[in-house]
């Protein structure tokens, strides 16, 4: 009796295992053919993605600012204004919400290790332009857990806003304060007519900085 039951059980188990494997095979086949058709679609639409051939190339980009020619706030303001205009950088009354890509500061803050007692007064108090340094060994990139900020081959430290989760590790890592966090919806800091259509704005909850005009 016992023997018989085991025998029966084994038979049923064997047959159902066979049936299951056949069943999954046909299901897998369906998936495979779906993949194939996707492949065919892909082939039909083979297109090429290349770099813009007119774009300038560099091994490692750098920027030189001639501080002898930019000496007053009046010299710097148009530069700051146009950068912030074409990159849709918002303006907020509340300084805690400030977003800046390019800004000005005095000598001791711009060149913190190069202060000297004998520095000429004229240099001490003129404004200097500051922007993201596009560091060769960027600490923000090391800190970013999602690789939302990364270094391109030509040295530019980029932000990928699609990936930014707003953790602000990069802001803690950046020694130069080049990064700003969107505490509020940046579009509220841009007047409707002032939005530059050719460049995206950002959204609340991401960190942003100068993109070196990529």
């Amino acid at each position: 009796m016992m023997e018989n039951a085991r025998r029966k059980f084994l038979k049923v188990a064997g047959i159902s295992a066979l049936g299951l494997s056949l069943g999954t095979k046909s299901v897998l086949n369906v998936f495979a053919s779906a993949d194939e058709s996707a492949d065919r679609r892909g082939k039909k639409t083979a297109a090429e993605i290349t770099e813009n051939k007119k774009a300038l190339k560099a091994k490692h980009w750098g920027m030189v600012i001639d501080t002898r020619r930019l000496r007053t706030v009046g010299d710097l303001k148009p530069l700051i204004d146009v950068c912030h205009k074409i990159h849709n950088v918002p303006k907020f009354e509340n300084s805690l919400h400030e977003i800046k890509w390019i800004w000005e500061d005095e000598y001791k803050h711009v060149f913190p290790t190069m202060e000297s007692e004998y520095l000429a007064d004229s240099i001490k108090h003129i404004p200097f332009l500051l922007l993201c340094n596009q560091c060769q060994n960027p600490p923000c990139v090391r800190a970013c857990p999602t690789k939302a900020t990364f270094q391109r081959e030509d040295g530019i430290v980029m932000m990928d806003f699609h990936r930014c989760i707003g953790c602000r590790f990069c802001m803690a890592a950046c020694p130069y304060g080049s990064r700003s966090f969107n505490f509020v919806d940046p579009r509220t800091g841009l007047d409707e007519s002032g939005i530059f259509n050719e460049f995206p704005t950002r959204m609340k909850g991401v960190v942003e900085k100068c993109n070196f005009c990529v």
Partner: protein
Amino acid sequence: MNDKSRIIAGLIIFLIVVTFPFWYNMGKAAPAPETKLTDKAKQAKNCIQPTEYMRVGHMQLLNVWRNEVVRDGKRTYVNQSGKDFNMSLSNTCMDCHSNKAEFCDKCHDYTSTAPYCWDCHVYPKESK
């Protein structure tokens, strides 16, 4: 088993309640929306890829575009007929398809998809 009638009545009521949404909405399915093309898009006749492909695969295409542009700095798309395009949602797609409400939103609403493109990317104002 003396409650047979009650149980059956209960089951019937349960079935009616569960299937209520189906027969309540019977025959009221919203028709699939037709997108409207702008004059500029009509004039161009061809999009960057055949219409069939764009209808099915525009989201994959845009996803590839954003990765290539942002991560690899590749901004030029050359299609099979050798025409090249600047890979940009706001500047290339929305240049022809400047009617977001009629072109994008209609189908997205119908299929209940809410792409977050417009949180950042700017779309042209529609004159009404």
